[in-house]
């Protein structure tokens, strides 16, 4: 109650709220249009820089950056981490980190512009919000692990490697769909 009166009594704050959260909600674009735009972004990335898109690589370097702050000695003793953050190497000094930060920014800007910024948890009807959070974390951990093992996630392998016709990326892509379809039946109550 007091919170409501407070927002009402504070016009500055409510206008800020309106600015971010009360824009008219627009529908999503048609998948083929969204895909075409995504493909054009992908092409521009290759044309301008020679590199594709990605996201797990950027998260990886941010994780290693934090590890390097906490335990630099450990990073210097682990060969896989050493390549990114050994000695005076800054793991954030890499293009993929900026693509990753940009993706967050772009998602935010697009969500804001189209009136889709909303604090919410999307889930199937039969599970609780807390269960959904737990599953999201566990699924994320499995996905993150697999993405590093495969040297790239859906963006770096399936999307970028798929468009450049890298043979291994096509194998990764089919494996992703295969893994998800193989388990989908057993998780039907989570999502339906």
């Amino acid at each position, binding site marked *: 109650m007091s919170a409501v009166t407070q927002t009402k009594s504070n016009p500055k704050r409510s206008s800020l709220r309106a600015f971010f959260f009360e824009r008219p909600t627009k529908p999503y674009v048609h998948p083929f249009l969204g895909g075409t735009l995504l493909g054009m972004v992908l092409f521009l990335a290759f044309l301008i820089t020679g590199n594709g898109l990605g996201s797990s690589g950027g998260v990886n370097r941010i994780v290693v950056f934090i590890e390097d702050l906490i335990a630099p000695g450990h990073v210097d003793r682990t060969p896989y981490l050493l390549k990114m953050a050994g000695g005076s190497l800054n793991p954030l000094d890499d293009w993929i980190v900026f693509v990753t930060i940009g993706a967050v920014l772009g998602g935010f800007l697009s969500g804001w512009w189209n009136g889709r910024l909303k604090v919410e948890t999307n889930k199937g009807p039969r599970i609780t919000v807390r269960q959904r959070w737990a599953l999201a974390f566990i699924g994320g951990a499995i996905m993150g692990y697999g993405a590093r093992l495969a040297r790239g996630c859906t963006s770096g392998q399936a*999307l970028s490697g798929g468009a450049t016709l890298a043979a291994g990326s096509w194998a990764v892509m089919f494996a992703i769909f295969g893994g998800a379809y193989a388990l989908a039946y057993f998780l039907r109550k989570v999502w339906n």
Partner: protein
Amino acid sequence: MAPFPLPLEGLIGKFGMYAVYLLIGIAFGAALEISGFAISTRLAAQFYFKDLTVLKVMFTAIVVGMVLIFGASALGWLDYNLIWVNPTYLWPGILGGFIMGIGFIIGGFCPGTSLVSLATLKVDGLFFALGSAFGIFLFGETVGWYEDFFNSSYYGRLTLMDVFNLPAGVVVVLVVLMALFMFWGAEQLERIFGGRDLSKEPLLRVAGAAALFLAAVAVMLIGEPTPAEKWTRIAPEKEAQLRNREVQIHPGELLDSLANDQLRVVMLDVRPQADYNLFHLRGARHVPLEQIRSIIPSLLLERTDNQVIVVMSNDEAAATEAWKILVAESVPNVYILEGGINHWLELFAAQDPQIVPTPTPALGLDYIRYQFPAALGDRFPAADPFAHEYEFEYTPKIKLELKRGPSGGGCG
């Protein structure tokens, strides 16, 4: 033609370069968001055949990107040899992909979409992103236990063109056809499982499919630039380098470079097998001229910034041919051994009584003009002379071209 890839760092500085990457990232995130990829239930519906948005968006992006990339390559706007093509590690990739699929259906996102989801304040997106950071951390800590598997089944820069032995244009058309068939199938599944009314779908999508197919056929008909065309494009500049002898390095420079720890010298001996067996420099790889193309993928992929490639033949003719092929395929830092093996032997085998110049007039160019007691290969002292015993006057010609090439995949 603009240089490819653009030397961004040189043009606009490091911050400018990173600003470009940031803009690309913003466009990437926005493209994911407008497709509805911030919503986990929408993504997961893919795997219950109700709403195949994920498949449609992903495959549309792949085929549109592919047609544009290979179209631009056919027209000479970008150089396929210089863009990053994910190297193939088959089994780690398949296992990792399978694990990712499991994570996808449990968590409802992939890493990129979870970032967009958290950016639009979805709490499940935040938990997924934190989870993937944790999984990535766990991988960094545990990969040391099975490094052998992680680096196994390595095929290098393997493309679908290599696998099916087809030209790029044909593969492009086939992939587009496969994608269009999948889109048709996806819509049928949505009709059956999701109760979607296909008559309400925009007709424009059929026109888009037709345009995509025609563009792919055009890419196939234009064809990727042949080696001869690639050479023609750069010939004026490169012929001048050959004429001005900017790329023919003195044997002394090769010897000093081999002794220089800061350089990684790759020597390619392009002579016939018999000549190579008679005598070759220690450490030189034997790649006959006819097979020089086969090593280009590995030279492009495994290159380091300090890599220098030196091609050599008996004189210079075959080495120059090899040089042209490598340079046309955008392999950086390639040089020719000046005067070839004959010149080398003249300098380093003068004291060796076993190796004698043939008195008969030369058979012609690019024949070996020395006689050996036996085909001892690199077991002659002249095959591996001590750098500090020799001092030559020469003009150093090796200039490392530190071109910022594609540095790693999206997840590198």
